[in-house]
């Protein structure tokens, strides 16, 4: 198992080329991303690890198309997204990326089914197909019986599973999980991590952003970030030996 097993096509799914993200804080210049280049291929399971303030959130935002870099190129699935407008980015996020957030980020007043349907609504999928696909996605995480529930009627682990169902529903090329276990206890964390692993084994590309080394080591490949720079990029075994 490892990076080597992933069949590396000519074109990576994620191709970050010399990415800079510079914030101006008064007179100070903060380089949240200081010349990062990174390639991630289809089918990989990568964790991006770093302490708070290391620039990993900036990485997450840029990889997730929530933000654009100050300079550098970002080719996602063959498309240059580094200079896209707000609405174009929204479309890319909708079609290409499935987000799993630390705080689940479910809409509290909508049922589980409605929550999972959301990305499909924005993709313009018709009502009937939408509901079928959302239901199938809920089934995948084992919550199809609870489709009528509201998020707060579920436990944290269940809510995180709903958000995974939501991430999966649009068949995205990339599942991007931002501290997916940050709000969960160790047992439910295990469940969620196992689930993400399973998704990867089914062929999905999974990227986890975390500050937690032990969680980072669940992935097959680890990228460590410090001060906006990549300080390690390699197989998880290599990383384990390194720590």
């Amino acid at each position, binding site marked *: 198992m490892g990076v080597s097993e992933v069949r590396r096509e000519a074109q990576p799914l994620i191709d970050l080329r010399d990415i800079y993200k510079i914030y101006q804080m008064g007179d100070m210049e903060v380089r949240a991303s200081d010349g990062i280049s990174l390639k991630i291929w289809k089918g990989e399971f990568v964790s991006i690890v770093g302490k708070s303030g290391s620039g990993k959130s900036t990485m997450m935002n840029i990889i997730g198309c929530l933000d654009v870099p100050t300079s550098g190129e970002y080719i996602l699935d063959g498309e240059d997204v580094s200079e896209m407008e707000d*609405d174009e980015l929204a479309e890319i996020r909708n079609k290409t990326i499935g*987000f799993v957030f630390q705080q689940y*980020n479910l809409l509290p007043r*909508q049922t589980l089914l409605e929550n999972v349907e959301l990305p499909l609504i924005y993709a313009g999928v018709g009502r009937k197909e939408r509901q079928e696909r959302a239901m199938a996605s809920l089934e995948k995480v084992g919550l199809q019986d609870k489709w009528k529930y509201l998020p707060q009627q579920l436990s944290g682990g269940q809510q995180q599973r709903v958000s995974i169902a939501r991430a999966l529903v649009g068949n995205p090329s990339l599942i991007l999980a931002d501290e997916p276990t940050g709000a969960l206890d160790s047992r439910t964390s295990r469940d969620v991590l196992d689930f993400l692993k399973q998704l990867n084994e089914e062929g999905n590309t999974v990227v986890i952003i975390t500050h937690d080394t032990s969680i980072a080591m669940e992935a097959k490949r680890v990228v460590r970030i410090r001060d906006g720079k990549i300080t390690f990029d390699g197989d998880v075994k290599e990383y384990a030996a390194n720590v």
Partner: protein
Amino acid sequence: MLQTFRLAMKSLAGSKLRSFLTMLGIIIGVAAVIVLVSLMSGMTNYITDSFSDLGTDQISVSVTNTGTRSVTPDDMYEILEDNSGLLLELSPTVQTRGMVKRGADSLSTTSMTGVSEGYLDIGALELSTGRFLTYSDIVSEQKVCVIGSYVAQELFDGEDPLGQTIKLNGQPYTVVGTLAEKADSEEGSSDDCIYLPYSSATKLAMNSDITSYTFIANSEQMDLAKSVLESELYAVFLNEDLYTVTTLSEMLEMVETITGMMTALLVGIAAISLLVAGIGIMNIQLVSVTERTREIGIRKSLGAKQSVILRQFIMEAGMQSSIGGILGIILGSVLTTVASSLIGLDAPPSVQAIIVSFLVSAGIGILFGYMPAKRAARLNPIDALRSE
């Protein structure tokens, strides 16, 4: 679109009290517009109706006779004859008030008007019994009179008044006719009246000058009739200040102008309340956008474009104000119906006011909802997700 509509419904239902309070401004504003417009137009109709009862083909002439220059009824009748196609009828009118007595019963509010035999048509009077005044009554200054239904009811109480004698300011007059009820036979109404020959009335009023005449003119040529009368009178008086010629339709126009101005004023005030309500909606929507920053962030991260968010918030504001508008229409219609029946005015809720105020209220929601919606649409998804 349907999806957006459902979403907006859900969001409004989620905070009922707040939505209702926000709507209250619109409800009151719309209700006020409907009540004011309906009542004012009912009032205007009432006034114009009472004018057209009198006939819009009337021309009133009032003169100030001086020692050297004056007109007599005979002069006026000559004018009538000289312009026979244009001027159709004439009656001098001598207005007087006084005591009307029969035995122990007396009336003091009754208007006593000296007129000619032509006044039956001019005043659009209808006889109930007996006859109206005749030319010979006038020439021979007969002490006869025709009484209104209120006077008949008060002084005769079921007895036949014809041929009976009543005293007008102490002078005995014989009743020769009674008039049909015109208003409601109340004191001071147009049924509280007595008509007598103008020649006799000048004696009763102790003023031999007749200063007021009423013509009926060809209704197609009112303006011409008026100017003819003016020039005839100028020939006599050589001074425009000594006479005035007024057509009833002119007075009607004046009344309509005044009530129109009042309506505009009242509607303006109501419109200000709608404006304030709109600002209230904007305010609440701004709060709502702030509160729901996270929701907006989630939606945007999942691929909602700016236009989708914009539509959602505008829809919410528009629905809020439209529902408020509908409630306002219901309230306004009920209030109008209640108020008009209390006042005794025939004022149905104005359809025009309903349509306009609904459109305005819906428009206000959309207009004032736009700014907060724009703000929501432009939120940066990262900042929005980070907010708690």
